[in-house]
């Protein structure tokens, strides 16, 4: 009857505060797991330092090395801080702060001696998990963090359970605890209101840099289109008939940035940006100075865009954006663009209403006209061509047509255009005649300006494909595009896409079809090469999309919607009711039906074998009675079934020795004898047949 208490007492007289072997092992693993993903975002010397510290700590535990003295610790800390300053050249910003956290985390390991230290390290581990989420919010980061949390709680638990020493069992216990916690977290997540940021925080810089920069030179976009990365996803809202209103492919021009300054090689935007006069706010109606005029039938598109981090302040939209809604502060520019006050460093959701069929800026100010007609020196042949158009007194529309006709005749659309020299427009127009969209758009804009027509370059994305389940549209970097806008009297700014003149299929069907086979292979090199890989990638992207849409973008609006769906009202007290009632119910459930302990007692292998043996005997009509001991049963077998008599006594003896005397070393012997018995029985059966 007297059970484990005594043995527990013998093992440990009381609560020991020392860090034991078990706990230390847990600690090393937990710390490694917690900081591993952070290493990808931090200086390369940190993993090396961690390795060094682990070795040192193990040596200290073995008693080979002494615990470091205070001045050594100070030296180490100072060295690391200097290292960080050298690596980052500053101490402000997210990365240096996280790096500092990791350094403290690692160094603490050296001096941890007692329970308090271990607990502190585990707590820092939790913050390390949070730090990971600053850098990455992907589904994978979340799943990995769940794993990290299991290990961290396992570590914490290993200190407060003296009994359970097997790590496997600890992990199981930790898992049970976390499984119980997850539903509670679900309720908190769904119901707790979010509040707006209390103060401004530095943003992580490294995340997501693919996309346009503020300048476009020949080759920039052709480099960009080789990436299959997703630029943004679009969700079109359904109209009254519950049918999503989607623009046709040739209308899918996602404008990002207008560039109106050309230096003969690169296009850039005027700086400072021509912002509209009003302050940025989260909801904006069309800018009054745009002087839009309704014209003909207008189609309205309402859509939400989940933009991947691109590290720039501009957002993409269809022409003409009439209204934009977002958590971020946003505003319109004079160029019908949407921009935010700060760079997009994480996935951002915004909703836009756009409409076609508007006349834009029928009047152009003198300053705007000047800016959009300026051309750099050089390119005499192109100037001469534009001059000839002017001499023929072509109207603006005729000039545009003439230029497009030129492109239509002899130009080739290619990802690998030949390099261009000083007079890049001349060389492209009259010599190489092979180029990508930025070449066409750039030279077209140049020609228009040279012919006295205000023109500018627009970069963004053209196209977009629907996801597998057709729920949303995906726009990738490979859809990157450049085109031109010219200002025509009485029509305002009009989009002209010279690429359309060269390779119309690019616009209608996408880049894959427009390129030659060779180019298409280049585009596909390594990426999405096999069909199943492509399917897998699509599925994963789908998952990421759902993750982004349902989890990362969950906000108060969604919370209110949920409450409305559940109760038909979004009163504040419902939040409280759901919170307290839900969690209370869960806890009551946990209290009443405790989860079965997964790490239950397993039957002894000898017991298993013996039961199998008994089943075999039962099949032969010999059943062991409940009151019979193993020996008594064997004796009966001896009398009643001579065929089985040979091994019966031996089996019973071995079974008794193993189970009642704890002689586990006899298990193989029992197995052997049972096998032998089966063999001989098989022989007997064969002979008798």
């Amino acid at each position, binding site marked *: *009857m*007297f*059970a*484990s*208490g*005594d043995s*527990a*007492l013998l093992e*440990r*007289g*009381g*609560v020991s505060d020392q860090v034991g072997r078990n706990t230390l092992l847990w600690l090393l693993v937990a710390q490694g797991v917690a900081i591993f993903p952070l290493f990808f975002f931090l200086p390369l010397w940190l993993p090396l330092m961690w390795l060094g510290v682990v070795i040192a700590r193990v040596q200290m535990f073995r008693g080979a090395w002494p615990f470091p003295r205070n001045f050594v610790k100070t030296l180490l800390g100072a060295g690391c801080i200097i290292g960080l300053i050298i690596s980052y050249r500053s101490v402000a910003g997210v990365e240096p702060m996280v790096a500092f956290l990791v350094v403290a985390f690692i160094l603490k390991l050296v001096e941890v001696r007692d329970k308090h230290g271990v*607990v502190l390290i585990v*707590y820092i581990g*939790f*913050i390390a*998990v*949070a730090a990971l*989420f*600053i850098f990455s*919010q992907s589904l994978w*980061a*979340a799943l990995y*963090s769940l794993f990290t*949390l299991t290990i961290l*709680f396992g570590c*914490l*638990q290993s*200190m*407060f*359970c*003296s*009994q*359970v020493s097997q790590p496997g069992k600890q992990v199981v*216990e930790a898992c049970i*605890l976390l499984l*119980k*916690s*997850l539903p*509670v*977290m679900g309720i*908190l*997540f769904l119901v*707790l209101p*979010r*509040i*707006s*940021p*209390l*103060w401004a*925080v530095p943003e992580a810089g490294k995340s997501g840099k693919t996309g346009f920069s503020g300048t476009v030179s020949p080759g920039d976009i052709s480099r960009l289109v080789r990436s299959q990365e997703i630029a943004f996803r679009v969700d079109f809202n359904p109209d009254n008939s519950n049918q999503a209103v989607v623009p046709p492919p040739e209308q899918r021009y996602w404008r990002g940035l207008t560039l109106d300054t050309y230096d003969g090689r690169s296009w850039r935007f005027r700086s400072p940006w021509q912002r509209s006069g009003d302050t940025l706010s989260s909801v904006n109606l069309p800018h009054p100075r745009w002087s839009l005029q309704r014209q003909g039938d207008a189609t309205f598109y309402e859509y939400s865009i989940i933009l991947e981090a691109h590290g720039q302040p501009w957002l993409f939209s269809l022409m003409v954006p009439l209204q934009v809604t977002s*958590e971020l502060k946003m505003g319109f520019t004079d160029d019908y663009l949407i921009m935010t006050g700060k760079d997009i460093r994480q996935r951002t959701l915004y909703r836009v209403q756009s409409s076609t069929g508007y006349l834009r800026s029928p009047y152009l100010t003198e300053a705007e006209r000047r800016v959009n007609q300026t051309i750099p020196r050089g390119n005499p042949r192109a100037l001469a061509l534009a001059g000839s158009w002017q001499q023929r007194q072509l109207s603006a529309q005729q000039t545009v047509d003439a230029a497009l006709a030129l492109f239509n005749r002899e130009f080739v659309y290619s990802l690998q255009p030949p390099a261009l020299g000083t007079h890049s427009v001349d060389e492209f127009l009259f010599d190489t005649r092979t180029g990508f969209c930025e070449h066409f758009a750039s030279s077209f804009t140049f020609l228009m300006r040279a012919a006295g027509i205000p023109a500018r370059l627009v970069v963004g994305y053209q196209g977009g494909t629907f996801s597998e389940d057709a729920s949303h549209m995906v726009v990738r970097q490979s859809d990157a595009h450049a085109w031109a806008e010219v200002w025509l009297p009485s029509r305002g700014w009009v989009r002209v896409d010279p690429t359309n003149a060269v390779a119309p299929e690019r616009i209608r069907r996408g880049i894959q079809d427009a390129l030659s086979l060779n180019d298409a292979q280049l585009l596909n090199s390594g990426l999405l090469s096999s069909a199943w890989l492509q399917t897998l990638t699509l599925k994963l992207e789908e998952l990421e999309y759902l993750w982004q849409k349902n*989890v*990362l*973008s969950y906000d108060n609006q969604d919370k209110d919607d949920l409450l409305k769906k559940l109760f038909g009202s979004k009163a504040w007290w419902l939040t409280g009711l759901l919170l307290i009632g839900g969690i209370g119910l869960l*806890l009551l459930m*946990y*209290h009443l039906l*405790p989860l079965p*302990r997964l790490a239950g007692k397993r039957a002894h292998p000898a017991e298993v074998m013996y039961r199998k043996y008994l089943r075999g005997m039962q099949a032969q009509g010999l059943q062991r009675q409940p009151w019979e001991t193993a020996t008594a049963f064997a004796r009966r077998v001896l009398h009643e079934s001579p065929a089985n008599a040979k091994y019966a006594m031996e089996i019973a003896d071995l079974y008794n020795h193993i189970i009642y005397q704890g002689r586990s070393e006899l298990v193989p012997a029992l197995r052997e004898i049972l096998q032998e018995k089966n063999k001989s029985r098989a022989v007997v059966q064969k002979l008798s047949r």
Partner: protein
Amino acid sequence: MKSIYLSLRKFYHLHFFRWVDKHIQAENQHQLSRHKLYILPSRRGFVFLALIAIMWLLGTNYQNNLILSLAFFLISVFIVAILQTHSNLSGIKIKLVGAEPAFAGEEAEFIFTLSSSKPVQNMELQWQNCPLQPRVVNIKKNTVASVVVPYVSLKRGWLQPGRLQVSSYFPLGLMRCWSYLNWQACALIYPAPLALEEPSSSVRDGENRGDYPIAGGEDFSGLSEYRPGDSLRHVAWKNYARERGLYIKEFSQTLSQERWLDIKHIQGDSLEQCLSGLCYWALQYQRQDKYFGLRLNQHNIDPNKGEDHKRKVLQALALYEQGA
């Protein structure tokens, strides 16, 4: 500031424990129930809450739903831990088995048995007024575990250990669940042995004319069956070798030398010291298997030897002038 804190603490202790004592009567058996168990976050738990607050701030400022989720998750773990810590201790039956006497300054051992219908982990037992490390017990499902909870007393006499503090931090150390239990328990504390000079009265000459004729001596009087505690010197080994059983040779004699441990004849600075000295010599004689008696003014114990005698003597020493 500190004095305010201390006086508040004193006030709290006074009233809280008055309440506890009224609530939890001294008994021989307790079952830990909702009414007896208290639960609050431990210091680590409060740090954990601070951690959650930091994460919530971080998540809110970065508008980062995942960091917020992490904060919510830690809150959930905290909530579940409350339940788990409480259910770890609730329902345990604790029974007082008894107490072993001890010498002052040594550990008097109180023996308890614990039983529970579900597994219990990392339960710590400790006397509230005793600075010893707590005992840690794990109980398997439907079994009884015995645990010895020691108490160090520096004073001889009857020891009443006060409240037994039962607590647990299981599973994560975030919560502390505890209870104070009062017991009808007493342990006898003997004076601490102190090597003083041998009392003069203990050495006395005499040739077979002692005042106290007693059993035992040098004249063989017969055999009697061995009982535990009998001196091994008197075992009839020859009989034993012949496999006739374990017997004790009995002697009868009047004492040739009577040893008296007399409080008046021991030289010590104080009464306690004198008692300690007597205790020391009583143990010495017992070890040497000598006859001795005890004289404590009014209270006399006749010369004798053996375990029972020793116990009587030590008890007399322990309780001398204790008013009990």
